[in-house]
């Protein structure tokens, strides 16, 4: 098992370097003058030369890449031209929103998708099955941004005044004051240290912060604001998971050992959950891992629709403003996250199925 894990980790290193090079090359290929994009069209050559020198953009590309690699390995993504602050700082501010949103989306999709898939496999060809598969087909065909807008319209306008009314934008109700949990806990970390960064990062996830603070009004408000974005973002993976669960379950339910289990007189619930579902889980791990990548892509659209200031939104803004640093950093972080995720999926696969690690 250890050899397998080590081999998988070693295999992903070239991919990681490739990602770094690809993002570096992409950002450098942007066909515009970063100086004039930042300082305005009228900037003189002298001013621009100085600007390029200050940001190291006058050196040969190979040197720039080497410098870039060294900095990234130290967790330094340079400064953003536009916000004139370290990109890492912006990342720490914005990532929690996206993480919260992605997990909420994944949570919704697993919570609804797996039971739907199991039920429609057990009741194969019944109306539940037909409806689920119809819904799954429609679910994977809807554009995320359209679904988001329609949900906002239905739950914020049509259902206004009913208990089902939900807010269509933002992360918290305006006026709600949040206190970082480390202040109530009297931790008082020094600004700039790693401890502070980690605590600050955690406190920016509203639900986590509210729970650690025992502030359940905050938790409730944050959850209420997350429902619509999570539904919009979670629908496509939900449909994929439901389909995969169904086909995987159908395959397992046809096996001899299921018949044996039934012949022994085991209850239906035990047969389905213990004998069938556990064995059907394997392909699901892959689908869930892969949907997280889709979730990250969908987060850009969902954050735009619901006005959430997360990674996706700032990435889009940075691209329109040609802010190299941010584009590079965010693409790298998301791609690296995706690679690690695939690694985890592969390893859990080997853990769940001994045949794989023995190969």
């Amino acid at each position, binding site marked *: 098992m250890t050899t397998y894990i080590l081999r998988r980790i070693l295999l992903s290193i*070239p*991919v990681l370097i*490739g*990602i770094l090079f*690809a*993002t570096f090359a*992409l950002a450098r*290929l*942007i*066909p515009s003058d970063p100086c004039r994009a930042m300082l305005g069209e009228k900037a003189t050559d002298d001013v621009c030369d100085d600007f390029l020198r200050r940001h190291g953009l006058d050196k040969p590309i190979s040197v720039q890449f080497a410098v870039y690699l060294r900095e990234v390995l130290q967790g330094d993504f340079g400064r953003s031209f536009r916000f004139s602050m370290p990109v890492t700082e912006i990342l720490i501010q914005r990532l929690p929103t996206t993480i919260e949103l992605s997990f909420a989306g994944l949570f919704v999709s697993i919570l609804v998708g797996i039971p739907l898939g199991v039920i429609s496999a057990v009741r194969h060809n019944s109306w539940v099955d037909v409806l689920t598969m119809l819904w799954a*087909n*429609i679910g*994977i*065909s*809807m*554009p*995320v*941004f*359209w*679904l988001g*807008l*329609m949900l*906002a*319209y239905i739950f*914020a*306008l049509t259902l206004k005044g009913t208990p089902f009314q939900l807010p269509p934008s933002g992360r918290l109700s305006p006026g709600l004051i949040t206190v970082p949990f480390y202040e109530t806990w009297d931790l008082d970390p020094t600004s700039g240290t790693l401890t502070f960064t980690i605590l600050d990062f955690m406190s920016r996830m509203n639900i986590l912060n509210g729970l650690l603070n025992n502030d359940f009004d905050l938790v409730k408000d944050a959850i209420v604001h997350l429902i619509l974005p999570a539904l919009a973002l979670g629908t496509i993976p939900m449909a994929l998971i439901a389909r995969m669960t169904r086909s995987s379950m159908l395959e397992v339910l046809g096996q001899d050992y299921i018949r044996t289990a039934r012949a022994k007189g085991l209850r239906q619930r035990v047969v389905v959950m213990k004998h069938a579902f556990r064995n059907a889980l394997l392909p699901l791990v892959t689908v869930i891992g892969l949907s997280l*990548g*889709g979730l*990250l*892509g*969908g987060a*850009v*659209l969902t954050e*735009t*629709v619901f006005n959430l200031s997360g990674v996706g939104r700032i*990435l*889009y803004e940075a*691209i*329109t403003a*040609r802010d190299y640093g941010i*584009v590079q950093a965010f*693409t790298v972080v*998301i*791609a690296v996250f*995706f*690679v690690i995720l*695939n690694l985890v999926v592969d390893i859990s696969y080997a853990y769940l199925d001994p045949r794989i690690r023995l190969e």
Partner: protein
Amino acid sequence: MTPEIQVGAKLDSEGKSLQSVSLWNITRRRLLHRKSAIVGMVILAILVFIALTAHWLAPYDPIKSMLDVKGYPIRPAKREAPCIHAFGCPPDQPQHIMGLDGNIRDEFSRVLYGARLSLFIGFATVTFAIFTGALLGAFSGYFGGWIDNSIMRVMDVLLAFPSLLLAIAIVTVLGPGLINALLAIGIVSIPAYARVVRASVLSIREMDFVSATRALGGDTVQILFRRILPNALTPLIVQGTLGIASAILDAAALSFLGLGAQPPTPEWGSMLGAERNQVFTAPHLVFFPGVAIALTVLSFNLLGDGLRDALDPRLAHVS
């Protein structure tokens, strides 16, 4: 009277001529047995019909504002709600099945013209991706060694990005616009086809008929393009059909973000993006283009699923 037997026709042991059963015939028969595939084909046929005849079907010009339409009876307002005579809209008012948009254009006409663009986007990107991907995959699988390694590692890097994000990054480099968006989505989808073709080539390369061609003196080009690639076509068709669906979705997303088709082009994603802030006041302008996207994507998804089941050799005995 004995039936005439064509020269060269295959005969079975009793001398009757065998009906040739092509893969195409089996596939068609199996496809027609699946309700979902039929639904997909029907929707797709309607969409193709709309796309081909949009200039006859559309009641108004998709780009010209109603203010410029000669003989228009009333002074039109921005984002007017749908007016359908059959549903009680006064007959003295001009009919707009899907209302007017923010630039006082007939939404229905724009949605109809959008079918043209979306189908074009789907086919164009997938054609590009299939050609490039199949070529890369074929070389990779056939030659192996360092060629295989270097091509597949590049594909791994491409696959390491969430596809929409990579497409966004590529469009930034190329600049916003429909053609660049198509190119970006095409590039992003190459790895999927390369992998599919590589896998088929790896398995077909070792088969006897390929060795036979080599023994008969066939050159690499002939073996690759006449012997191997045609046999790798089946998974490619399935992947391609499903690929069109995701290409249309991604293109709509790019246009929604303002990176794809630019106004006033009647593209569903950009129509949605232009009116997204008006969702509370004019929901029809968001609703209809989205439904159009979903229906188009749905038709390709259903057809792709049906094709996969129909072309699966493991189901061969069911024909």
